[in-house]
């Protein structure tokens, strides 16, 4: 029994990602979409907070949103995987529920 969490806001502006990571259980997945993809960036002031949960929680970014914003996959934190919309669908169906951190 595990949850797919989605986060759609920039963590530099809004604390949704932080709250989400604070309410994940080990084995859950977090998919960063829309402006949320900035949470997957390496080398930022927040990278450590995000990286601290990588492993226990699986971290993904929606690649189409990352590409729209000019973020190549080489910019992503270790442990953050890009997925397409098809991967998003798979994450929804392979977890027991989806929780949106709006």
């Amino acid at each position, binding site marked *: 029994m595990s949850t797919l969490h989605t986060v759609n806001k920039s963590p530099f502006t809004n604390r949704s990602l932080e709250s989400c990571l604070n309410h994940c259980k080990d084995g859950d997945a977090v998919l960063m979409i829309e*402006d949320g993809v900035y949470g997957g960036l390496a080398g930022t002031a927040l990278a450590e907070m995000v990286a601290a949960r990588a492993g226990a929680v699986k971290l993904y970014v929606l690649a189409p*949103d990352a590409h729209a914003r000019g973020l190549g996959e080489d910019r992503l934190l270790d442990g953050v995987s890009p997925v397409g*919309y098809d991967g*998003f*669908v798979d994450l*929804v*169906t392979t977890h027991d529920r989806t929780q*949106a951190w*709006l």
Partner: protein
Amino acid sequence: MKIGVVVSEGPYTHEAADTAYNFVRAALAAGHEVPRVFFYHDGVNVATRLSVPPQDERHIQNNWTALAKEHSIDLVVCIAAAQRRGILDKNEAERQGKDTDNIAEGFRISGLGQLIEMGIQTDRLVMFGD
């Protein structure tokens, strides 16, 4: 699998309606069912037929209308949220004494019960919003 979808923000202003559209297309392509999409909060504004985006931009309402027709998706607009924001069908316009309606083809106005029902009858529920 049956997947229910909620769109909670208006078109163009937030990416939510776009992400939901791309997600639903991918879900259908993967062989899943999306029996209903529920539009709530400013999401009801997706359903206006009066939108005229610039020609080089996507037409969000048209995209939803076409997708729903092709895949028999029930596009439900919350009546309470729609009334506040000025999205009316013919019936509602008459009932409220308004001189026109503005809802687009393929969308229908109904109650919040349709959202709960969707939560009960689908295997997964995914929300897109702000």
